[in-house]
C-alpha cells in the first residue's frame, strides 16, 4: 500500500511545487540557524536533507483546500483536497507551528515559534501580507468568530497574546501556565480554549497538575482555569457538536512518575488518554467538570496522544498517537456509555476502557501530530510530521485511503531516522513511551522521576532538556554516563524501555539526532547581545562569586563534572550531582537534581542554607535578582 501511495504522491507533485522546491534549494533560501542547517552539518554521514516536517493542518472553510504548516521548511503548503495535489507554498517565519484560517477563508495566520511573530498570509495570493509581533514562542492560535481578534499561545512566555487584527496591535496578554500549546475557538464563538503542555510547578513528591484555560471572547479575559490532576502534555482540543453533548476532548498523558520507573515491566507507568471536559453552563455548575479516560489497551499502550477531531455528526472522534504512529477511532456513543458506567474517580486508572469504545486502530506514518476532518465529513487527514506526508482516511469506513506525499526528500537521512526513532514507542515494553513522550519538543516534561532505583521515592530526579546537550557530557544527574551512546543504549534498554532497545545502527542515528537538537533563541538577550544594566550587574556577581568555577562559560557553563552543593535530599544515595549546563536556563524549571527548586530564586533562598552552592547568604535581594537576570541571558 505504501509503495502505491508513494507512486501516487510523486505523480501528484505539481510542476510549481517541484520548481519552487528546486529553486529554494538552489538559491540557498533555507534559513540559517534552523535545526535543518545544524542537522546537516552535525551528523556524521548525515544526508543534507531539507525535510518539511508538517506539524498541523487546517481545511479551508469550503473544504476545497488543506493548508499544512511545515516547521522545518518555514512554510505553509496548500493541498487540493480533492486531487490531493500540492497547489502552492508560502514561506513564513522561523519554525512555524500553528495555523488558523480566517472565518471568510481569505487569510491564514501562522504562528512562528522562533520568530515570535504571526505571519498573516493572503490565502489566495499566497503571500505574507503582514507580520505581527507576539509573545515568546507562539505555537497554537485561533481567530474569534467574527475574525477580528487573534488568540496566540506563547509557549515560552507562558501567556496568550490577544491581537486586534484590524490594527495588528497586541491588546493584552493573558497568563497560561505552563507552556500553552493549542488554541481552539468554541463552536458558538463565546469561548477560546487553551491547553498547556507542561504541568504546574509542584513539589517532586506530588503528582503533576495541568491547566486548561477557558477565555471569555466577549470580555477577552480568562473565565476559568481548570486544574486537571495527575496529567501533563495536554495537546489538541476537539469540541463535540452540541447535539452530542458539546463536551471537549483533550488528549493527554498520565504519568505515574512517583512510582519507580523500573516498574515499566509491570505496565501502567505511562498511560495515555484524554480529558473529557464538560463546560460550566450559565445557571449550571459553577465550574467545568473533567473526567479522564484512557486510550491504552491492557497489554499495549498508545503513546503521545496528540491530535483530536470529531466527525461533523459527532458520532466518531479520532485521536492520533504521535509516538505510536497510530490513530484511534472512538465511537462516541460507546464512550458515553463507558463514562456513565464507571465513576469519574475510577476511570483515569482503568485500562479496560478503550476496548469498550475504540472501534478501530489505524496505522499511520511516523509521528502523526494532528488530524482534521473535512467539512463534508467524508475524509479525515492525519499529519505525519516525520514522514512529510498526510494519511487520508475514509469516513465512515475508517480505512486508510491514501498517502499524500508533501514533497520532502525521498531518502531518510541519519538525522531523520534518529528523529523517527526518538518518536517511536515500539522500543519500549508494551509501547508505553518513546524518548519524545517524556521529552516533548526535545525538551522536558516538567516532572521528577524515580528513574533507576527500585525503592519508592529514592533518588528521584528531574527531567533534563535535550536541547543543546551535544557538548555537555557526561549525562544523567549522577554523571555516570560518559556519552549519549551509553545513555541512550544499554541504559535506556535496561532501566527505561525494559526491552531489547536499539540496535547499533539505530543507536548511532538516534544519538546523531539528539546531538543535533539546537538551542532555541534566547528571549532574555537583546538582539545585539548587549546586556541590560541588571544583567551586567548580575554578570559581575557571577564572576565575583566564582560561579564560573563550576559553570565555566567556555563549556556551556558546566565544568562537566559532579559536585556536591548540599542539595541531596533525604532519600538520595549520593550528594554528588552532575553540574548542569546553564544555556536557556529560564526554560527549564523546576531546578536542581530533583526539581525541588521551582524557581531560580529558590536555588539560593531555600536550597543553599550552608553556602555550599556558592557563598550567597551575604547577597542582598537586589543582587540575587541581578544574578538571575544574568543567568537568564545565557
Amino acid at each position, binding site marked *: 500500500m505504501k509503495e502505491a501511495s508513494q507512486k501516487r504522491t510523486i505523480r501528484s507533485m505539481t510542476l510549481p511545487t517541484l520548481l519552487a522546491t528546486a529553486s529554494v534549494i538552489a538559491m540557498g533560501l533555507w534559513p540559517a540557524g534552523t535545526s535543518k542547517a545544524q542537522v546537516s552539518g552535525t551528523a556524521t554521514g548525515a544526508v543534507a536533507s531539507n525535510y518539511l516536517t508538517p506539524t498541523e493542518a487546517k481545511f479551508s472553510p469550503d473544504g476545497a483546500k488543506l493548508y499544512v504548516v511545515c516547521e522545518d521548511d518555514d512554510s505553509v503548503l496548500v493541498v487540493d483536497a480533492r486531487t490531493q495535489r500540492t497547489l502552492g507554498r508560502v514561506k513564513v517565519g522561523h519554525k512555524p507551528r500553528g495555523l488558523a484560517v480566517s472565518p471568510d477563508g481569505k487569510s491564514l495566520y501562522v504562528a512562528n515559534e522562533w520568530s515570535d511573530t504571526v505571519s498573516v498570509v493572503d490565502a489566495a495570493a499566497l503571500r505574507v501580507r503582514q507580520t505581527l509581533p507576539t509573545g515568546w514562542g507562539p505555537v497554537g492560535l485561533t481567530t474569534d468568530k467574527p475574525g477580528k481578534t487573534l488568540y496566540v499561545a506563547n509557549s515560552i512566555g507562558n501567556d496568550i497574546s490577544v491581537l486586534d487584527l484590524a490594527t495588528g496591535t497586541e491588546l493584552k496578554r493573558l497568563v497560561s501556565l505552563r507552556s500553552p500549546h493549542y488554541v481552539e475557538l468554541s463552536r458558538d464563538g463565546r469561548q477560546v480554549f487553551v491547553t498547556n503542555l507542561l504541568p504546574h510547578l509542584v513539589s517532586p513528591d506530588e503528582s503533576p497538575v495541568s491547566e486548561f484555560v477557558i477565555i471569555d471572547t466577549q470580555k477577552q479575559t480568562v473565565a476559568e482555569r481548570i486544574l486537571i490532576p495527575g496529567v501533563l502534555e495536554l495537546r489538541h482540543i476537539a469540541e463535540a457538536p452540541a447535539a452530542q453533548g458539546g463536551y471537549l476532548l483533550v488528549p493527554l498523558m498520565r504519568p505515574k512518575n512517583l512510582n519507580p520507573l523500573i516498574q515499566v515491566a509491570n505496565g501502567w507507568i505511562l498511560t495515555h488518554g484524554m480529558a473529557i471536559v464538560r463546560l460550566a453552563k450559565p445557571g449550571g455548575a459553577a465550574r467545568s467538570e473533567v473526567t479522564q479516560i484512557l486510550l491504552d489497551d491492557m497489554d499495549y499502550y498508545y503513546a503521545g496522544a496528540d491530535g483530536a477531531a470529531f466527525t461533523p455528526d459527532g458520532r466518531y472522534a479520532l485521536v492520533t498517537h504521535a509516538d505510536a504512529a497510530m490513530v484511534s477511532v472512538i465511537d462516541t456513543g460507546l464512550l458515553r456509555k463507558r463514562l456513565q458506567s464507571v465513576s469519574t474517580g475510577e476511570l483515569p486508572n482503568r485500562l479496560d476502557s478503550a476496548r469498550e469504545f475504540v472501534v478501530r486502530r489505524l496505522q499511520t506514518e511516523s509521528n502523526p501530530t494532528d488530524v482534521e476532518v473535512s467539512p463534508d465529513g467524508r475524509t479525515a487527514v492525519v499529519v505525519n510530521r516525520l514522514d512529510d506526508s498526510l494519511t487520508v482516511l475514509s469516513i465512515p469506513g475508517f480505512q486508510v485511503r491514501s498517502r499524500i506525499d508533501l514533497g520532502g526528500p525521498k531518502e531518510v537521512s541519519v538525522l531523520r531516522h534518529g528523529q523517527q526513532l526518538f518518536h517511536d514507542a515500539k522500543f519500549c515494553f508494551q509501547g508505553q513511551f518513546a524518548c519524545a513522550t517524556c521529552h516533548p519538543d526535545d525538551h522536558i516534561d516538567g516532572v521528577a522521576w524515580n528513574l533507576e532505583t527500585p525503592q519508592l521515592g529514592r533518588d528521584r530526579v528531574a527531567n533534563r532538556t535535550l536541547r543543546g546537550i551535544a557538548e555537555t557530557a557526561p549525562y544523567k544527574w549522577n554523571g555516570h554516563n560518559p556519552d549519549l551512546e551509553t545513555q541512550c543504549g544499554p541504559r535506556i534498554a535496561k532501566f527505561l524501555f525494559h526491552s531489547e532497545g536499539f540496535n547499533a545502527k539505530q543507536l548511532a542515528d538516534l544519538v546523531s539526532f539528539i546531538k543535533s537538537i539546537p538551542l532555541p533563541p534566547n528571549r532574555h538577550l537583546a538582539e545585539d547581545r548587549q546586556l541590560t544594566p541588571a544583567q551586567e550587574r548580575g554578570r559581575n556577581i557571577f564572576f565575583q562569586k566564582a560561579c564560573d568555577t563550576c559553570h565555566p562559560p567556555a563549556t556551556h557553563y558546566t565544568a562537566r563534572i559532579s559536585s556536591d552543593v548540599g542539595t541531596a535530599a533525604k532519600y538520595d544515595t549520593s550528594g554528588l550531582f552532575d553540574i548542569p549546563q546553564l544555556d536557556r536556563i529560564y526554560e527549564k524549571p523546576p531546578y536542581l537534581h530533583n526539581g525541588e527548586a521551582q524557581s531560580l530564586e529558590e536555588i539560593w533562598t531555600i536550597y543553599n542554607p550552608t553556602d555550599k552552592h556558592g557563598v550567597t547568604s551575604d547577597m542582598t*535581594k537586589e543582587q540575587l535578582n541581578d544574578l538571575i537576570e544574568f543567568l537568564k541571558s545565557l
Partner: protein
Amino acid sequence: MKSGQRNHWLGCLVGLLCIAPTALAQTPALYTKWENFTTANGMPDAKVFCVAIDGDRVWAGTENGLVLIENSKVVKVLGTADGLVNRVVTGIAIDKKTGDLWLATFGGVSRYSGGTFENFTSLRTGLANDIVYAVAIQDDILWVATTAGINKLNLRTGEWSIVSERTAPMHEPWSYGIAVGEGKVYFAVWGGGVLEYDIAGDYWKPYTDPDGEMELVLFKNQGLIHIIVSNISYNHDTKMFWASTYFGMSGYDGHNWYNYLSMDSGLASDFINATQTRGDDVWACTDKGLSYLNFKTNTWVTYRPNQKTGHGEIVITGPDKKVTTRETPTTLAHNYILNMTFQGDDIWVATAAGLSHGMHESHKEGKTNEQARNGR
C-alpha cells in the same frame, strides 16, 4: 503627637490657604443610606483593609481572606485553603485589561485569575519582602509596595527589580501605597514622604516635609505636610495626587500644595489611612470617620456612626466654617476607616468592623441637601 505644640494662628493660616479659589456655598450629595457587610452576614473577619470594584462585583480584602460581594450578598470567601498566599489581604489591584486580580498580602503577592491563585513570595521570586501593603498595575508593569522597598515586575519578561533606599531617593524602604498617574507613578513611603517615578524618564523624585516632622504649615506651598505617608491616590480629572499622612492630608497639582488639618477644616482627624479622589471629590479615610472634601467649594462632610445612638452622624462644614449636622438611621460599620472606593455614584468603605456600602439616592438628593442646609 504634637498637637499641644501647635500655634493656633498657624492653624488658621492653614485654613485660609486651603480654601479653593472658587469656593461656593453648595452642599454635596449626601450618603444617607448604608448597608454593612460584617461577620454577622458572611464576612470572614471584622477588619476590612481594602475594597475594589470590577463592574458589578465588589472585592474586599480582609484580615482573614478575600471576599466577593455580588447583588448585596457575600458570594465567595477565599482563603489560604483556596490557594491565597496569606490570609491578610491588604491591597487589591484589578488589571483592567486581563481581568486578573492582584492581591497584596502579609505573605506575598497573589494573582487571582480564572478562579485560581498564583503566588509570588520573596523566596520563590524577586519580591523584596513578603509584607506587602499595596499593588498597582501600570500597563504591563506590576508595582508592589513592601516593607523592604518598592518592587517592579515586568509582566512580559518576568524581570523583578527593587527600588529601595539604596537605589532611589527614599529615606526609608517601607512603602505603603501606590497611585498610577499620567506618565508618573506615586508611592507613599513611611517616613520617606511621597516618591514620584517618571515612567518615560526612568527617574525618581522625592517629596518630603521641608519643616521636618512638624505637622504644621508655615507658609504657602511649603510642601508635603508630613513624611509619614500612609497612602496616596491620583485624580485623573484634576491631575493632582493626594497623600494621606498620620498628621494631615496633602494635595499637589504639580505647582501648588494644598494641606489640611482637622483643627481648621472639616477633616475628622489628622490620622488618615488613605485618600481616594475623583472630579472635585477628595475622600479621607480617618480613624474618626470618613471625611469628604469638595475641593472646588471647600465644603466638608464627615460620616461616622454615633456611638451612643448607633445611628449615623453627618457633619457638614461649609467654607465659612459653619457646621451643621444630621442623623441617619443607617451608617458606616465603624468609624475607623481603612480605605474606600467608588462604584458609579455609590461608595464602598473598608472599616475596622466591616465593609460599608454607601448608596447614592439621586431621587432624594434635593431633599437631603435641603435638610442638610436646614440642619435637620
